């Protein structure tokens, strides 16, 4: 590892799982079932396909621009002003996403485990932990999250296996009781959250190690598939346990865990699940705060990358306390407005960039069989030398 800040390819792939599955595994089954009913898992499967598309674009851009970040890519493609605009849009998105994730944690604790504690306590402490982690740098984050993710997946699988006696296949039928429309709405929600959020990886991918053998793309596709399978599985399993009631239970996986009773020995295991699932949200918040901080560092060309970490965290704490009026407002914003925003702004930007790069590359390819944009190439040499 020549570059001190870079992380290994498999660690990058793990970060992708963390950020896509992290909070979604506990939050997603409920709203998708709410809108799509029995067909929730089909929506999720389609959304996974959409996620693959987004990831393909992100990886294409990463290759085409020789591992540059979002800011430089957009500067090369659209010019300086547009690049700043794009960065600001992404910053706004992250400034919504990070508090939303933490509010998710808050509401889990305030509604289920500790009803009397005010939510600012959770906000403050969670953000303290998140900022502390970000301050330690990406390598520490990556190393640690591999461990946590193994734990997260293992616990989720154990729950789903222990719940086998509760499954009733008849709940899952008919597959699409209300036609195609609910599936599409479900697809819209889950396409935005969590799959559309893959566009944020344009910020993170430059940190992947470039001195390492092995294919980044393969690892990333594989890890997205892990997310896809886990999400589909968890929504299918909750559906088979609760049937039509799935859409009503918030934190359905947690409720599922509380239903498990094996021979009077294994029971009341939901608290472990709760904590483990919340750790997923923590991981996602950490990755996003790192991205947000990096965007500022790159935008303002800061030398000290911890300079803005504390103020940014402070802003996020305040946002998390003021942004949502209540649970219903939270659901509305996170499951309706946020996906719309991700799809129309984030995904659109990335798709446009991909298309433009692709077209330009195609034209240049006809002119000289170089395979790369000469303009980019020269820039690479200039900055590399």
């Amino acid at each position, binding site marked *: 590892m020549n570059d001190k800040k870079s992380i290994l390819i498999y*660690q990058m792939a793990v970060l992708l799982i963390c950020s896509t599955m992290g909070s979604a595994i506990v939050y997603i089954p409920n709203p998708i079932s709410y809108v799509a009913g029995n067909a929730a898992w089909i929506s999720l499967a389609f959304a996974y396909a959409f996620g693959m598309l987004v990831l393909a674009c992100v990886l294409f851009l990463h290759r085409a621009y020789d591992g540059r970040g979002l800011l430089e890519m957009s500067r090369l493609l659209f010019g300086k002003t547009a690049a700043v605009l794009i960065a600001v849009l992404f910053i706004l998105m992250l400034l919504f996403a990070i508090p939303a994730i933490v509010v998710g944690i808050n509401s889990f604790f305030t509604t289920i485990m500790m009803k009397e504690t005010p939510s600012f306590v959770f906000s403050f402490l969670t953000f303290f932990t998140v900022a502390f982690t970000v301050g330690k740098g990406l390598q520490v984050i990556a190393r640690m999250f591999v461990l946590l993710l*193994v734990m997260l997946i293992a616990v989720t699988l154990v729950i789903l296996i222990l719940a086998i006696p509760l499954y009733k296949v008849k709940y899952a039928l008919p597959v699409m009781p209300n036609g195609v429309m609910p599936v599409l709405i479900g697809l819209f929600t889950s396409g935005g959250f969590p799959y559309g959020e893959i566009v944020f990886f344009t910020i993170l991918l430059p940190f992947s190690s470039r001195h390492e053998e092995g294919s980044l793309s393969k690892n990333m596709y594989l890890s997205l598939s892990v997310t896809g399978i886990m999400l589909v599985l968890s929504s299918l399993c909750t559906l088979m346990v609760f049937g039509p009631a799935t859409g009503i239970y918030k934190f359905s996986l947690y409720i599922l865990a509380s239903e498990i009773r094996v021979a009077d020995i294994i029971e009341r295991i939901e*608290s472990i699940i709760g904590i483990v699932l919340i750790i997923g949200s923590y991981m996602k918040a950490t990755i996003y705060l790192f991205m947000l901080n990096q965007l500022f560092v790159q935008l303002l060309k800061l030398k000290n990358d911890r300079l803005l970490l504390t103020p940014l965290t402070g802003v996020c704490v305040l946002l998390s306390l003021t942004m949502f009026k209540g649970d219903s407002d939270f659901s509305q914003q996170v499951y309706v407005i946020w996906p719309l925003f991700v799809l129309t702004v984030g995904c659109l930007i990335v798709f446009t960039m991909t298309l433009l790069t692709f077209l330009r590359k195609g034209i240049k390819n006809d002119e000289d069989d170089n395979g790369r944009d000469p303009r980019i190439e020269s820039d690479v040499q200039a900055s590399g030398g």
Partner: protein
Amino acid sequence: MKTTTGEIRESNRMSKHLEDNRKKMEETFAGCGDIEFHPSSFGDNFEYKAVSVFCSTLIKDKTPTFMHDTLNDLFRKNVEEDLSPERVRQFFIKHGASTSISTMLTRYDQAVDCILNGYVVIWFDHWDTAIGYEAFQVAKREVGEPIGEPSVQGPREGTTERLADNIGMIRERLKTPRLKVEYLVAGSVSKTKIAYMYVDQAVKPATLEQFRSRLNGIDPYEVLETSYIEDWIEDSTYSPFPQYMYTERTDFAAASLLDGKIIVLVSNTPMILVCPALFVEFFATSEDYYTRTIFASLIRLLRVWAFIVALLLPSIYIALSTFHPELIPTVLLLAILDTREGIPFPAFFEALVMEIFFELLREAGIRLPRPVGSAVSIVGALVIGQAAIQAKIASPMMVIVVALTGIASFAIPHYNMGIALRVLRFPLMMVSSLLGGFGLMIGFLLTLVHLTSLNTLGEPYMSSLAPLKLRNMRDVFIRAPLSYFLKSPRNRHLHDPRRSNS
């Protein structure tokens, strides 16, 4: 400046006159009662004088007669010729002495060093050179069973306070020129000899370089124990977690060397410092490799469980009983409530009192002489176990929790890691009493972040776990059969050296 150093050098050189030399030594060692001067004469008519100087507390009983023996040697060989100082000189320069190790000394500071290191130094008339004979002998502890790390199976040999013996015992196990020993001396008063050893091609070059650069500059410090070195080269002094490991077992030291570790030995202490030490290595003992695979693996898992219990059990109990009683199965909850009836304190305070009491007992037990120590533990057990419950200060459940925690922390094989647990347990208890499961989770995450960000000699402390290296997992939570270890770090010297530093 040049002249002054020249003058110093000049004044440091021995004189040709015996009286000058003697006077200089007497001045230097004024007030040192254990420095002895033994004059004698030689030559045909005993017209020439000689004097031997030594530190009587440092040398073997019979060595004051060294000079006589040496001169006798001369007489025997040179009966025909007359014994002038010139003859004596020629003899020593050409033949050396017949007995023991000897060195020629020309400067006073060399002579002082030699005397303080247990040499007998002899001056002769008309000669500006002295001869030093090694005659060091100080009573030291015999090689015995390592007290800190006893074992049921495997060698019972432990290190002693003698540096040379310790190095010898390690070298006996690794008969290769690749085992390097490098010495340095630290401290202007103690002049402690420090040795570090490593196996070339097993140690990572970057680690060795890092180690050397950190050890640089220790010379002016008085090093009295290996822990001084630990403190000196540590990455994070304020972390509760030990970043280096100690051992008194030579077999463990040899195994560590094969693992690519650097070991540090300091004279006059039996403790060997193994660096760098990774987090997961604190769960292993040398005995794991002497017992059968299945048993060794189960024991390892038991230790990991003990670690979790020792760190978290009191906090989990506090969190559950104060914040989340609904998560305890009903029957158990009723039992707990039953035992807690009439206890005036909240669970946190109860736990705190009992834990502090336990720590107190443990500390008292260590320092006291053995016969009194057992009395303390009997009284302590009675007080903790029986009286506290009857007086309604603590509930039986809490006693179980505290006792289990204590026993679990004893199951961690390395003492230093046990200390880390003792330190961390209290803040975790505090956060869980304030914020229940959430606080516990925050505490756990912060600890994990800290652990992951720690480095030891440039290597990630959580290595093999974070960054995760599945290949090394065969020697972390389980101990795979030894035949699988051919490709493990232990046999790194067999691998391609270029790949080993990745």
